[in-house]
């Protein structure tokens, strides 16, 4: 109990206006910085259970954005979130699944590995090794349908986003930027550095739910050969 209270007391909570239909709650905790993303997701999941249709609750790595066209509903969500924050503790264990995602780093595919090797001063094979030897956590979904933000990237692979985003990143691209890895389930413009491609389909609007991976799930990448990639893609 005392642990819970001190956690909630030291949690910095700031509220911001985000237009007439939205509020943004930004969280910070000096002692548990890496856990804030988990807290945002678990709070959003609980809040979603209390919310009615027509509302959006968007958890990010250090924030939760509330959206409702109804003023009273928006205030209700804010109150409920404040209540949940007051009760929050550092025990943030959640149910999460481990997904093994096949990835192909072959040169014949569309990747930025050559440029990355030059920029990072690490050779390609080593980048590949460092990219798949760690386990990632899905910190959030966002940007476009089926884009996954993964934390856990090897520190030595940290790199700023491209200055000019690529006009089209193919669907299935696995990329890195800042301290994250990410998966583009759909083709889109993108500013992240592509390291490999997965043949897996991770977003399909005709399935329920349309995304195969949830926030806070864990990801391991399993390298596959070009032949296997092409076979699975066919």
């Amino acid at each position, binding site marked *: 109990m005392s642990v819970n209270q001190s956690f909630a007391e030291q949690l910095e909570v700031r509220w911001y*206006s985000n237009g007439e239909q939205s509020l943004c709650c930004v969280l910070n905790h000096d002692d548990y910085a890496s856990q804030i993303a988990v807290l945002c997701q678990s709070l959003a999941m609980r809040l979603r259970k209390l919310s009615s*249709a027509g509302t959006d609750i968007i958890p*990010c*790595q250090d924030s*939760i*954005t509330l959206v409702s066209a109804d003023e009273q509903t928006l205030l209700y969500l804010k109150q409920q979130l404040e209540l949940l924050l007051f009760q929050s503790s550092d025990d943030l264990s959640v149910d999460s699944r481990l997904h093994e995602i096949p990835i192909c780093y072959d040169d014949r595919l569309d990747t930025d590995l050559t440029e990355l090797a030059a920029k990072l001063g690490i050779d390609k094979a080593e980048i590949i090794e460092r990219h798949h030897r760690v386990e990632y956590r899905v910190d*959030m979904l966002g940007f476009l*349908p089926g884009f996954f933000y993964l934390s856990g990237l090897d520190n030595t692979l940290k790199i700023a986003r491209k200055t000019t985003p690529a006009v089209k990143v193919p669907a299935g691209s696995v990329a890195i930027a800042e301290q994250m890895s990410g998966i583009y389930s759909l083709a889109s413009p993108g500013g992240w550095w592509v390291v490999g491609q997965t043949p897996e389909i991770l977003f399909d609007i005709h399935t329920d739910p*349309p995304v195969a991976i949830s926030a806070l799930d864990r990801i391991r990448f399993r390298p596959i050969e070009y032949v296997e990639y092409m076979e699975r893609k066919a």
Partner: protein
Amino acid sequence: MIEVITGGLQTTVQDLGRRGAMHLGIGQSGVMDTLSAISANRLVGMDDNNPVLECTLVGPSLKFHDDMLIAICGSDMTFTLQQQTIQQNKSIAVRKGATLTFKSNRLGARAYIAFSKTMDIQPVLGSVATHLGAGIGGLNGRALMRGDKIQFIDNQPLARADIEKISTARYAGHYQIRYTSSPESNNFSAAQLENFVKQKYQVTKEFNRMGIRLTGRAINFAEYPSMLSKGLLPGAIQIPPDGLPIIASKDAQTTGGYVRIGQIILADLPIVGQLQTNDEIQFQAISLSDAMMINQTQAELL
């Protein structure tokens, strides 16, 4: 049923949008100019959320296989019905076999065609709104193409127009757009905020359902404020490192990492949906309570 003779530049099926899926990365979508779409629906006696066709700059040509009423609101897009130019902002009876043909568009970017029937389209996550980037909603997530056939729900009582005429916006090519503060507003200095509202911005060639890029004098940053991505709504005014604003549109990404100088008020979002290349805009900062009052007034006028 209607048959698409030509699809036009980008004609999509839209309603008032999708709610409750932003945490999956699936944004709101829906009509860019809600005011015009709602007006068109009311002219044909339908609910505000009844699916409409959103036509962009170059409209479609459609052949009707059913009798129904239609109404066209929004940009000054002109159409002919059996070679006769038809009036906008009015309910029009269309007979089976007639063809509606696009003629021209000058002011404003988007016109809405509403029907006195409901298109028979399977909703995706509660909405038929087309999200082009995600390929969902509407006709397989894409714009209308020659040869498409859109069925309407059978046995629907023919709606009657519940209003005769509506007051409509005037599109002049230069607009004042009001905004309230955003979560990152205090990342901007007083001088930056002052420069932002003092100058005029022009709409570039990049204006679409994802975003509208503006050009003008860039906002300079001594050091660009870094932030973690946050929930992003249509109408957000993002300032990327190059200092030139990008307005988030209805199909915008659900989270964004560029600092936002403000959030455009709901009452001015319909105008944002009508912006086209070279249009000039000037921003004006207002309080949240003023924004709420303006919305109220607009809702009452409709």
